[in-house]
């Protein structure tokens, strides 16, 4: 009889132990939207020009999304664009909207005032499994000056030959000296 009691105690202790572990696993804080790719895979997206869209050849069946705040949006925006302020990206209504666009098979093009404003939201969304998202190379500034795009410098292109600048500056000064 004594043995039986001890067995029961062990049994109960076992159940309590495992239910505690189960409780811990179940209540662990899970992110609303987990990363779908690892940081190493995400690194391949950095500077990926195939995800940049130019104003010169806009794909059809695309949905423009303005990531600037609503005041900037109200001042002027690309036609047919919808406004999802970058800070509201993780609000349930934004996520539902992006999921719906993905389901419809639409290309989503993010834009901000310049390319940098859209780049962070793009890189974050791309890591969450939204692979239909692109961003505008010229930004809204470029859209407004559509006619002056001849002088547009591609992002990450050096604005001048840095090394030659020094050589020429030196030559110029030596010339003045003589």
């Amino acid at each position, binding site marked *: 009889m004594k043995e039986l009691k001890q067995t029961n105690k*062990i049994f109960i202790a076992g159940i309590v132990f495992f239910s505690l572990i189960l409780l811990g696993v179940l209540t662990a804080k899970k992110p609303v939207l987990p990363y779908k790719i690892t*940081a190493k895979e995400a690194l391949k997206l950095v500077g990926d020009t195939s995800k940049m869209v130019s104003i010169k050849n806009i794909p059809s069946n695309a949905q423009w999304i303005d990531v600037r705040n609503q005041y900037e949006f109200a001042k002027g925006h690309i036609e047919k664009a919808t406004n999802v302020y970058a800070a509201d*990206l*993780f609000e349930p209504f934004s996520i539902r909207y992006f999921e719906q666009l993905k389901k419809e098979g639409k290309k989503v093009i993010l834009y901000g005032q310049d390319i940098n404003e859209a780049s*962070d939201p793009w890189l974050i969304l791309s890591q969450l499994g939204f692979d239909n998202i692109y961003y505008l190379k010229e930004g809204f500034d470029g859209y407004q000056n559509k006619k002056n795009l001849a002088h547009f410098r591609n992002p990450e292109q050096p604005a001048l030959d840095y090394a030659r600048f*020094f050589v020429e500056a030196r030559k110029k000064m030596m010339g003045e000296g003589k």
Partner: protein
Amino acid sequence: MKKRVLITRKRYIFLGLAMVVAAFGLLFMDGLPDATRLRADQLLLKSMEKGHYINSDDLADKIISGDPSLLIVDLRDSVQYAKYSLPNSLNVPYGKILDKDYIGYFDQDQFKVVLYSNDHLIAEQAWLILSSKNFSDLYVLKGGLNEFFNTIIRPQEPVATAPESEFNKYNTRKAAGYYFGVPMPRSVKNGQGGNGITETGGLLASKKRKAITIRKKKKKKVGGC
């Protein structure tokens, strides 16, 4: 009676084994590749705070005053790096920042690491990836090398009606420019040695790299009791 004792013993063994298995599970939790990644929504907020930008004037000031806590990382390829780079900067092409050989430069708490590329697009995206891995003390040169050239190397002279502070800023930038290799007029040094500039235009000063040793950061454990 003997049978009961046997059952009890079996249960002891089973419980013991289960706990050992669970303990092993905890060990593996730390080994997951991205177990310590910052949540995506927190990452977005961090990037929108813009606290990680450092502008050209501040960086130039820090380089000239020889701030020992500064580690400048050039994220461009080695060809562009060889042509021109900021003095004492280290070359880690952006595709390699998570490689075993280089990750130590970012996963540390010893230096303020300033990332730069030609603009700040690549540097910012690299910053985002590194920050998502919960690395701290990372900064981005705002506007990149292009902006650095426009402000420090060839500053615009303010118009005559500009306030005095603008002229002070201009003079500071011009003086800084001489440090970064712009030939200084009326300097005796110009005649010989080429003011630190090689014939191909690279900076002599930038050829002399300081040795950088990184202390390994204490690994933070996740999970556990």
